[in-house]
């Protein structure tokens, strides 16, 4: 079948540009008809990644009518993309790794920290067949980290430091979290440190063991936190305050209904239900103590300077008057 010969009265030469134009109109209408959601200015755009550290958002979306009406969750698949969107003022709020937030402040990006995602919820995984039984065995091995600006990376460095191992004796590579379990299964890495559920995933696949939980290395470990754009804050303060209060409320509900919360999160993130249930019911994560404290964040800033991730500790802006 030749579409250029469909019309009897029009020569193929004339039909070609006509069809090209027709295609442009059809595909544009289809696109806006099918995927075109009208984004009203008043709705809050909130960036997140499909990890349990950002579970407050899907649970609130499911359970809280205010969220359904006023919040557009925007899913990212990697940290660098989210960083660029934050810098481009595309998002009102974002769940982002604590050291990234601090380094954004160092670059004078107008954001403040309003809430923590959760506490703990990170695991250090080693491959079953790697022969690692103590931290001393890490020497010469390859470990994956999500990104160098992560408390995961810093926890690994902290663990090495405590055991008197020089940082350069262990090979660290940056990998997107979803790739880590399969990289471990194919023996390209000996271990990794990552936010859940990607640590538990190695357990389920039978390829790795959780060598340490974040809480064993760094008590009250912080992974991600919620940042708010300062422009949005001055324009939509009431909306944002309600949004943060709503998130905090869901933290209490998650603690009491871990299995239900896991199912909501798994469906929203598109992850396996059993996997998320295992993460949440093994109680490696806590959603209670999530109001940020200046002292803790300054501490992370100092450590970043110590590990050469920053030149100096910037002024870390905290916003807690939403309470």
């Amino acid at each position, binding site marked *: 079948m030749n579409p250029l010969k469909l019309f009897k009265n029009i020569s*193929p030469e004339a039909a*070609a540009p006509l069809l090209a134009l027709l295609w442009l109109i059809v595909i544009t209408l289809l696109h806006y008809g*099918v*995927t075109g959601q009208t984004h009203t200015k008043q709705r809050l755009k909130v960036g997140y990644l499909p990890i349990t550290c950002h579970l407050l958002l899907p649970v609130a979306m499911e359970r809280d009518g205010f969220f359904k009406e006023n919040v557009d969750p925007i899913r990212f698949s990697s940290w660098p*993309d989210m960083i660029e969107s934050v810098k481009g003022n595309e998002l009102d709020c974002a769940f982002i790794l604590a050291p990234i937030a601090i380094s954004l402040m160092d670059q004078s990006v107008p954001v403040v920290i309003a809430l923590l995602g959760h506490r703990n919820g990170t695991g250090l995984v080693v491959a079953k067949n790697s022969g690692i039984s103590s931290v001393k065995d890490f020497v010469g091995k390859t470990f994956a980290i999500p990104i160098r600006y992560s408390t995961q990376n810093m926890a690994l460095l902290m663990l090495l430091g405590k055991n008197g191992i020089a940082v350069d004796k262990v090979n660290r590579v940056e990998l997107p979290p*979803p790739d880590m379990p*399969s990289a471990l299964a194919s023996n390209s890495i000996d271990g990794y440190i990552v936010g859940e559920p990607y640590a538990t995933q190695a357990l389920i696949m039978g390829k790795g063991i959780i060598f340490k939980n974040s809480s064993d290395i760094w008590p009250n470990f912080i992974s991600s936190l919620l940042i708010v754009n300062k422009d949005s804050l001055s324009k939509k303060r009431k909306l944002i305050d309600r949004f943060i209060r709503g998130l905090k409320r869901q933290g209490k509900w998650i603690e009491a209904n871990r299995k239900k919360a896991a199912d909501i999160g798994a469906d929203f993130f598109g992850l396996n239900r059993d996997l998320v249930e295992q993460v949440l019911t093994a109680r490696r994560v806590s959603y209670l103590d999530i109001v940020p404290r200046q002292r803790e964040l300054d501490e992370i800033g100092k450590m970043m300077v110590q590990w050469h991730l920053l030149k100096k500790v910037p002024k870390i802006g905290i916003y807690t008057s939403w309470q």
Partner: protein
Amino acid sequence: MAMKKAGFVMVFLLVLFFWQVVTAVFHVPEYMFPRPGDVALALWQMAKSGRLFESSVASLFRVTWGFYLAAATAIPLGLFLGRKRLFRHMLNPLIQFLRPISPLAWIPIALMWFGIGDRPAIFLIFLASFFPLVVSTISSVLNIRTTYLRVAENFGLKGISLYTRVILPAALPEIITAIRITLGTAWLVIVAAEMIAVKSGLGYLIIDARNSLRMDMVVAGMIVIGVIGLVLDFLVRLLERLPSIEWSRMRR
């Protein structure tokens, strides 16, 4: 023709057969490479939920706009530069400098300029298509036989009518070939661009399936991308068979 078709079907079935046998015999786990049956099921589920259609429309929409914008600017510019030696010498170094930079290298900048959504992806497709089209159009104008231009001169053709009556028709066969190759590149780039710069489309479908640890959906997405690529190529090939294009091939 019947032989060709039978041959194609045979190779297709053989590939399916080996895929099934290899994954079953070597006990390849699902997370390493899915079975044909799982992929077919994933395709069916995604088709039924409308997600496949929605993603394909989003990708095609971006490629269409990016590519049309590039063609609408690059071809006129190329025709002009092909004729004007001075401007060509002035702009060529810049074009040659920008051309080898992969459109994907522009992703961080595209994201910051255009935010998230259709615009950064359209911008990346534009970049991927614009430079090859300019360069090929210039060379197609330079390849026009001098006889044609001399005859045009004798008939007193000047200005716009010289372009529309002689230069464009003479250069068109080469431009169409460039369009076909560039459209292929644009389709390659859209998938990569959607893995990063947007939240819908076939590239996003794949990256999202990966994040959910669904390898069957990843492979299903790859198959759809391949099929649409084939269809696009088939359609542009039809242009090459138009009488006003085909004359150049007969000349040889």
